[in-house]
């Protein structure tokens, strides 16, 4: 607690100066719109919401920079696909560990405000180092940049959620989560469609290939600076709200006890398998997708960028809708089953047909959104509440482990065996996921579990127990 007080005092001393300079809107507000400055008013919360949304924009924009510039990175840095995919692997490695400690760091060490600022700094520094690696033609520096970027990336998402809970709990929380997610997807989409074009504009200035790449990535770093500014502004506003409303600094409330792992039930392990095997077949595919669409389907670079981002485009509006659907109907396992089967079909279309890939990618986008809405809440049904933090941390951790390993494997397969075999690898992963879903369904049926109850059954059970 003492530490936190110190942090808060430190923030008080520095905060207003910095944020005042960086966000003139916040400074100009008092004269024109008093409601905007009153932390108890909706207008002010909307301002905070705006800042929260842009807080994550930079990290999502820059996460998929390599995917958007795959051809350019490989050509300018003279690396094969295996080494290219290391850029994604290096992002995931720190998060294998950090997923357990992100919440701890925010709650006990930094506090939410400093935590957010520090993680934003990591993202900025990581992206700048990544760009410098291009400018100095040093691939190891680019990899190191992605590592630093990874340290900040996932933890910042935790911080973002904590802020959302702290400001909007009991008010517009679900909407806020939805909007934050949508904003993240917008960041990814803008990246996919913008970076290639930006590279060609920088290239026209006539510098060497790797310098062009570095400069393009450095321009991308502006979004990270924007995020950092948002983090500073949020810290100031949060601190100000604390002073005016006497509200507490937000906490993740996560308690991670690694010894809980031995108590995890079979359904939970199956959920982990579903999660890892599923995401392994989505994110590395998107990382490698752009060139796939140009080589196999003859798309232009622009069109390939657009179709590669369609998963994110669909996910932005569909996530809230599917969330509502799953909430209203229950039957989570069935929804997960639908999502996994659709993904399997989508990958099969991409692998074995020459049909227009828009069909397959739209299916992938829909199933990806559906899975996220149906899978993650299931954890809460099979884990006691006090272990929930550990379970989610573990799930994210092994997801990152899976992503790191599969990124490398995917790059190696592509270099030696080509896209068809890569797709077969992804199909095998999704199929493993499907197998786990089927097992989960059977285990749940056999144990008489609650995973596949409809919403009405859940309601009835709740009522009967409260009586």
């Amino acid at each position, binding site marked *: 607690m003492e530490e936190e007080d110190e942090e808060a005092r430190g923030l008080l001393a520095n905060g207003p100066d910095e944020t005042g300079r960086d966000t003139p809107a916040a400074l100009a507000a008092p004269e024109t719109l008093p409601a905007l400055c009153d932390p108890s008013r909706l207008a002010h919360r909307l301002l905070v919401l705006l800042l929260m949304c842009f807080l994550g924009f930079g990290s999502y924009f820059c996460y998929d920079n390599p995917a958007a510039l795959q051809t350019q990175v490989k050509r300018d840095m003279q690396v094969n696909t295996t080494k290219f995919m290391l850029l994604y692997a290096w992002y995931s490695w720190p998060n294998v560990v950090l997923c357990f400690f992100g919440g701890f760091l925010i709650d006990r060490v930094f506090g939410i405000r400093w935590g957010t600022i520090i993680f934003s700094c990591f993202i900025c520094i990581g992206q700048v180092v990544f760009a410098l690696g291009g400018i100095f033609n040093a691939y190891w520096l680019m990899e190191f940049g992605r590592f630093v970027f990874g340290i900040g990336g996932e933890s910042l998402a935790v911080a973002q959620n904590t802020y959302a809970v702290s400001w909007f709990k009991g008010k517009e929380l679900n909407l806020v989560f939805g909007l934050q997610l949508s904003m993240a997807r917008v960041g990814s989409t803008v990246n996919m469609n913008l970076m290639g074009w930006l590279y060609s504009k920088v290239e026209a200035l006539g510098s060497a290939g790797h310098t062009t790449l570095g400069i393009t990535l450095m321009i991308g770093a502006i979004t990270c600076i924007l995020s950092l500014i948002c983090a500073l502004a949020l810290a100031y506003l949060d601190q100000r709200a604390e002073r005016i409303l006497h509200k507490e600094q937000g906490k993740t409330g996560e308690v991670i006890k690694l010894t809980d792992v031995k108590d995890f039930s079979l359904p939970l392990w199956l959920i982990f398998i579903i999660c890892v095997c599923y995401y392994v077949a989505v994110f590395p595919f998107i990382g490698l997708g752009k060139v796939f669409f140009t080589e196999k389907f003859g798309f232009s670079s622009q069109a390939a960028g657009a179709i590669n981002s369609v998963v994110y485009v669909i996910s932005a509006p569909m996530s809230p809708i599917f969330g509502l659907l799953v909430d209203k109907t229950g039957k989570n396992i069935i929804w997960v089953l639908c999502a996994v089967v659709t993904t399997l079909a989508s990958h099969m279309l991409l*692998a074995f047909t020459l049909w227009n890939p828009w069909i397959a990618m739209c299916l992938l986008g829909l199933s990806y959104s559906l899975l996220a809405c149906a899978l993650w809440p299931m954890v809460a049904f099979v884990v006691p509440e006090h272990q929930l933090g550990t379970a989610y941390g573990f799930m994210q951790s092994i997801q990152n482990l899976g992503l790191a390993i599969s990124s490398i494997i995917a790059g190696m397969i592509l270099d030696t065996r*080509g896209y068809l075999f890569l797709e*077969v690898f992804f199909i*095998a992963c999704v199929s*493993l996921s499907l*197998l786990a879903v089927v097992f989960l369904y059977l285990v749940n049926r056999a144990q008489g579990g609650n995973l596949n109850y409809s919403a009405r059954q859940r309601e009835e059970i709740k009522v009967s127990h409260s009586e």
Partner: protein
Amino acid sequence: MCSCEEPRRGWGRCAPSPMLLLSLLLSAAPLGLRGEDARQVSLEVIPDPTGPPENLLHIRAVGSNSTLHYVWSSLGPPAVVLVATNTSHSTLSVNWSCLLSPEPAGGLVVHPEDSVQFSSALVFTRLFEFDSTNTSDEAAEPPGKPYPPYSLAEWSWNNVTDSLDPATLSTTFRGHPIHDPIGAFANGSLAFRVQAFSGSGRPAQPPRLLHTADTCQLEVALVGAVPRGNRSLFRLEVATLGQGPDCPSLREHHSIDDEYAPAVFQLDQLLWGSLPSGFMQWRPVAFSQKQGGRESSLPCQVSPLYPTLAYLPQSPIVRAFFGSQNNFCAFNLTFGTSAGPGYWDQHYLSWSMLLGVGFPPMDALSPLVLGIMAVALGAPGLVLLAGGLFLLLGPKRYSEYQPIN
């Protein structure tokens, strides 16, 4: 003996047939074009008993009912004459004095003459070079500032006997320009590596074209030559015999399978008539490094075929076999784009093609892919089935719902 004979048209033109009738077609196809699983292949460099050594390589592939003759030579520009016969006893006879004369028609004859089912020829006439330094448009034509082309007829070639390897059934024509004022080829060469096969298989080196006993592989490699521009693109001009008034047709076959040539989803074919007939087959990819990895692959663009009434330079062996036939067609293969990678990386460029008769070999999904797919799709289905049966037939259990909180 040295008389001009009626040009052989080989396989006549007939209406295109749907692929479903493939087997029917196959059984109706002339014996020489049906294809064989295995052949007895021999490579022989036919010597000129009187004059200095000349490069005339005869590849004879004998099957149970047919014989294929490939005659490769660097007399004039590098060229190959392909003859398919419907007997296992056909032979090639060479009249050197006629072949080396200004009117070589009749210098090459396959006996018995009525056994010839198909014949055609390829001539590699010129090597073009373009400087693409200031070309940003990858589809630009020409792809850069052109330099004077190398006419391959005016090159000197090594003795193929030296590189003849009966074990791998291969040999290499390696050449450089006779007149090379700037010394571009002082340490470099253009090599045509020819390889025949006694059975079907697939080489380890990309692009890993599937070959059969009915085919012969040519690998063209430009190595060590000093390019005249900073970002030089090379283009090979190939001439071939047309069928009557028409040029052979060019087919781009798109496939889903890139297992053997990562990220290449296309197979290009030059067909001299409706199938089965003679074909030339290649993947639209070349390599700028000897290992031929994906990072060194560059696109190989083919131009449409255009008739050339008087193409220069002439190939003596083609004229020796086909007489003074002049319905030649030509096309260009351009390797790489200005965006790179390119020849400038390592001063290396290689490209491969197959030449053969019958139906062009087609890739099928590998057993490994089929196996993985069978397991990947079968396992969840089986588990669902087995589990479903167990749940239906097994004892039912209900447990009291325990709230988590």
